[in-house]
């Protein structure tokens, strides 16, 4: 079976590469948007309670409805109601970014709130200004604490990107389905797909576990 899988990958390498490229494009854009905007929102939601409430409400609503339903709704009824036509690639980017922003902002919010305030107080007592306190104390401590969860959330986003195929985005899953319809070998094609996801996800997850073990030991101090 492994030989068959390799043969299929080689025969359809162009199609697979194009699909991979689209998947990577989606992921990189969604990761960047989620990490940048989510970090800002997460940090400021510790200061402005209204922001925190908005994120909590959105998270509550979105976690109650499958991503697929939202994607379909955004792609078909919403666009026909608004009389607009948006490339499914951007629809998928919008939906996945929204989910990633919420996930990242919740992780950042928890990270900031869980940092014992005494670490900052000590800096204040030592006469450090707020800029130095943020750069030298708060940021490194919070970053170490939340980095594993952030990485895991990004792997999750990669997996969610598969749903983009269902609104006709030409990413790896849709390409795989098309190859199956030509080759009639679903097991081999899905195995190839699984191997791809393992190659990308496992190192990130492994790194997340490594960071978690490394920094949790250091943070035992508190």
């Amino acid at each position: 079976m492994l030989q068959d899988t390799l043969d299929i990958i080689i025969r359809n390498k162009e199609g697979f590469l194009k699909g991979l490229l689209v998947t990577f494009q989606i992921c990189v854009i969604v990761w960047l948007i989620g990490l940048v905007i989510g970090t800002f929102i997460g940090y400021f939601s510790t200061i402005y309670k209204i922001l925190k409430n908005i994120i909590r409400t959105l998270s509550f609503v979105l976690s109650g409805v499958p991503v697929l339903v939202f994607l379909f709704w955004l792609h078909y009824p919403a666009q026909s109601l608004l009389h607009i036509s948006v490339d499914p690639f951007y629809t998928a980017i919008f939906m996945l970014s929204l989910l990633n922003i919420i996930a990242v902002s919740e992780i950042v919010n928890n990270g900031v709130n869980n940092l014992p305030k005494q670490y900052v107080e000590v800096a204040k007592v030592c006469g450090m200004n707020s800029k130095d306190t943020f750069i030298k104390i708060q940021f490194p401590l919070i970053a170490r604490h939340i980095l594993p969860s952030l990485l895991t959330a990004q792997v999750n986003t990669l997996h969610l990107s598969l749903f983009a195929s269902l609104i006709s985005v030409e990413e790896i899953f849709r390409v795989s389905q098309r190859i199956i319809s030509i080759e009639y070998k679903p097991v081999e094609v899905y195995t190839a797909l699984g191997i791809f996801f393992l190659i990308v996800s496992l190192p990130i997850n492994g790194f997340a576990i490594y960071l978690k073990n490394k920094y949790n030991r250091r943070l035992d101090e508190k």
Partner: protein
Amino acid sequence: MIKAKNLYKSIGSSEILKDINLELKKGEINVLFGPSGSGKTTLCRNLSLLDNPDKGEVEILDHKYSFPQTKKFTKLPYPKISFVYQQLFLWPHLTNEENILLALGKEDNTENKDFKELVDFLEIKDILKRYPNEASIGQKQRVAIARALILNPEFIFFDEITSALDILQTKKIAQLIQQLKAKGMGVLLITHNLDQFKLIADKFIFLHNGTIVENGSFDIFTNPTTKELKTFLQ
């Protein structure tokens, strides 16, 4: 000098501090003691302005802070007053050396005279390059003290720092506190370990249910005047 006038503090509906009037002088060792939950840590935090009292006035080194606060304080008393927590709160991502030197603000302060003296006196040379979680509780305690002392504060607050130490280490801390007094530093020490500090302290403040019940020299132990202190000492 640190002075508290008619200080009140509540958390939720419970009144933690009630009408606190207190005076701490430079070059004096003050011991704050009392039953658990009597408000010792809250008093310490309010006197050092880590928390704001609800009502009253705190005067720190000729600067008055009135409460309730009507505007943001432009001048805070740090690092002229310093604080060492019971749980220490050494920054876990920095080495012990970085923990001590960070406040000095320069890249390399290892040649700093005060730093060298503190390291020698507190016997922490061997653990400077280690992280806090790689040191024993006694060593961490000494690093936290060094961090508080490196900026030469005029007053220092110790919140039950000897609770996890053995008798020898506690004696060493008592010796250090005497040296701080000799340098003219004012000390406020919260402790349950009264025996160790009875002989070195100048003033004892007994707190009960958020009120200073007795306040004075060693005599309050030989001749307690209130029922609360008598019960506490039994």
